[in-house]
């Protein structure tokens, strides 16, 4: 029966033999995902058991967590998860041993969310390891990890993590409901899941935050958010996400609050730069030259002398080149990466200006924009603004500051309409909630910030006991 199910699967292993008592025994497992060493060492070479006890229940449960089943389908299911099935003659049952191979990447430093200060571990592809990283930080029975299986073929294990009593129940219900409604073949990455459960797909803005840092996950759990761990991806999903999470970095909470607040304002400013600088530059130089100081205008005019394109086209060209360079930088192997940066810096920065194709101020504007977009701690958010820069540029090229204003207003309307799991995207700024503002534009000190300092008091207030 099992052989039929696993027809044409070369990695299935059947090992049949006779025990010393003369009982025919069959062990079935899938090579690779089951720990063959353990089978060989623990199952066949017992140090603690007599030979006659081999393959009795006691022996089996001493090797690994075991369970008993009579169903052939369940057996197949478990085999695919890395269990080993033991059939012994004379019993109409199968003992399943959890002998999953613990292979995979070890815990490494976060690759994208680096900080100067703070923990240096990051999530791996194994959901069990990831769960343990969270559990280590929050050693409480209130930390709940509910497992779901998603994907008819991938059977991906998805864990919903939350702090009981602290979590927003409405959000939690929605998360579970949306996960339950997913009907798909496979979840290969957290991005699949993100798209399946997000509120609106037709928007450049992410409505679910992702992170590879367990400390960020723990902090968000303490704020009452829900976290999704998905097997096979090193990113955890955090819901709900608000727009202001864009400007929060893990480090903000580890450094002194004055510095953190200043840095947060810097990010806010750089975010505005990354969205508006090219369009404002184009709008002001081609529509409202009166807005510029006279001397600045004259040096700009001098620099633009002989440039063949209108400044909108020039800006679009440079932005396009910059995006190309960035994309090429990601694709290229490390060894050739320096070549790209040399070509980028020399060809675009220097030669294009000297050849009179683009003006030097435009190069400065575009590179400032590029640098500013890297200062946003959330990669998916900075991608959103990279995209939005282009329509903004077109609008400013057509209508000047009026177009920039139109673009801004439509952007704000869009952002105000967005929701992430029932939470308005711009909250707590719009709708305004003063009590929650202490972690938006400033990072207030912990002694003043009850929400950051002690979430348990919140639990007590809600449940009235504990």
């Amino acid at each position: 029966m099992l052989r039929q199910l696993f027809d044409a699967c070369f990695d299935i292993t059947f090992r049949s033999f006779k025990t010393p008592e003369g009982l025919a025994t069959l062990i079935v497992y899938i090579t690779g995902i089951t720990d063959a060493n353990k089978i060989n060492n623990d199952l066949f070479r017992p140090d603690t058991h007599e030979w006659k006890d081999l393959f009795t229940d006691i022996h089996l449960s001493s090797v690994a967590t075991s369970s008993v089943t009579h169903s052939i389908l369940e057996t197949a299911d478990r085999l695919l998860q890395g269990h080993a099935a033991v059939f012994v003659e004379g019993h109409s049952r199968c003992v399943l041993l959890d002998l999953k191979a613990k292979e995979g990447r070890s815990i490494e430093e976060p690759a994208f969310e680096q900080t100067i200060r703070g923990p240096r571990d990051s999530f791996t592809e194994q959901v069990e390891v990831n769960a343990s990283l969270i559990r280590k930080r929050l050693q409480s029975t209130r930390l709940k990890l509910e497992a779901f299986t998603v994907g008819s073929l991938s059977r991906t294990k998805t864990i919903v993590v939350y702090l009981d009593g602290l979590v927003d129940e409405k959000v939690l219900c929605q998360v579970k409901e949306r996960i339950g409604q997913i009907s798909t073949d496979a979840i290969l990455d957290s991005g699949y899941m993100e798209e399946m459960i997000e509120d609106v797909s037709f928007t450049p803005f992410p409505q679910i935050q992702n992170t590879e840092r367990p400390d960020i996950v723990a902090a968000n759990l303490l704020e009452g958010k829900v976290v999704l761990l998905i097997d096979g991806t090193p990113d955890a999903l955090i819901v709900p996400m608000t727009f202001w999470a864009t400007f929060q970095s893990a480090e903000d909470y580890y450094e002194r609050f004055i510095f953190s607040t200043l840095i947060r304002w810097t990010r806010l400013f750089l975010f505005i730069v990354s969205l508006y600088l090219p369009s404002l530059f184009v709008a002001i130089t081609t529509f409202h030259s009166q807005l510029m100081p006279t001397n600045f205008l004259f040096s700009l005019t001098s620099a633009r002398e002989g440039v063949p394109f209108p400044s909108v086209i020039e800006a679009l060209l440079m932005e396009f080149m910059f995006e190309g360079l960035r994309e090429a930088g990601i694709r290229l192997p490390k060894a050739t990466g320096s070549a790209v940066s040399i070509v980028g810096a020399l060809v675009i920065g220097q030669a294009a200006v000297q050849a009179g194709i683009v003006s030097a101020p435009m190069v400065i504007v575009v590179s400032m924009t590029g640098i500013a977009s890297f200062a946003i701690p959330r990669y998916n958010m900075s991608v959103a603004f990279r995209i939005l820069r282009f329509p903004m540029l077109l609008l400013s090229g057509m209508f000047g500051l009026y177009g920039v204003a139109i673009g801004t207003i439509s952007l704000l309307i869009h952002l105000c309409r967005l929701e992430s799991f029932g939470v308005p995207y711009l909250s707590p700024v719009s709708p305004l909630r003063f009590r929650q503002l202490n972690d938006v534009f400033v990072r207030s000190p912990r002694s003043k910030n009850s929400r950051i300092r002690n979430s348990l008091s919140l639990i007590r207030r809600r449940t009235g006991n504990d």
Partner: protein
Amino acid sequence: MINRSKACLTLLVFVCLMCGCWDRKELNDQLFDLAGGIDLDESNGNRYLITGQLFVPKSGEGQDPPRSASFLESSRGKNIADAIDNMQQYLSRSMTRGHRRNLFIGEKLARSGISELLDSYTRDPNSRLRTDIWVVKEGTAQDIMKINYPLEKLSAMAPIKIHQAAGGEVGTSLVHYLMASKGEGSSPTLPVVKKFSSPGLDKPTIMFYGRAIFNHKHKLLGYLNYDEAHNRGWIMGTIKNALITTDYQGTVTGFVSQPKSRIYSAVSNSGYVKVEITIKGKIVLKENNSSLVLSEGTDLMKLQQSFNNEIKTQMLNLIHKVQKEYKADVLGIGEAVYRQHPSYWKNHRGKWDNIFVHSEIIIRPKLEIKQIGQQNSPLHVK
């Protein structure tokens, strides 16, 4: 339905893109007018001769050999807009007046009235309100604009910087002119420049002369020289510091910081106005050629008295000049009376010019010496 509205929206976007009525104007299609000069010109029925100092953008690196960054162009016209339009016929880029910081008016034109050009200036929204308008004493606007001032890359910037260095307000003369001509009782004024040859060097340069006084019909009445204009600024509260030299057993010069003034006015039923102007300031001595021993209180008091007498004389001269010679209130006295006696003003505003000429103005100087500097008596005093 949704599809139809989407199609409409797309069409609308294409209309915007394709109609070609973009207001976009590249920097290099614009010609920036740095300074303008307007003179009276009575040939062939034209009235104005305008001169523009136009910016020449230099391409390439900044290490070029220094070339002139601007050139002059002139044209004639019936009015200002007509003259600019005429000039456009031989300019390859469109004139942009938004960055003009200076406007020079020849003396002849100023005497015949400047109300027309002020209208051209204030009606056009592209024109810059923070323009300084200068009257060129004893000359034409072209005289000044032809001078190649060595310090500034754009020689049109020179008068502004000279004015600034002399402690005056910059960028406000058009606004102040408009305010004074619309305000209660006062007559408008403009700063004055003059073409000048430096002593011994025989090289023409631009000199800041003082202020020009206009009457209510926007015609030039006359000038106040540098010191008089500075003293007027003291009364109006627009200067930041002043220098004053007195002669008391030898010359003594003091630097006045925090110059302040206050105008008190009293009115009688017959319509007669009495004005009292208090002049205040703190003096730091800069040069002392007198034999006074400044560490002694009595000598210091004598010197302070001398300074006060000096400023009083200067102020009275100024007042006499504006009151009797020009008969124009450029000291803000009408404004003070209007604020202090509004009911009186209501009845007498029409007659103010006459009342001003016959009012009694007294000066109460209250200068104080605060620092005598690092020396006590000069070296020649044993």
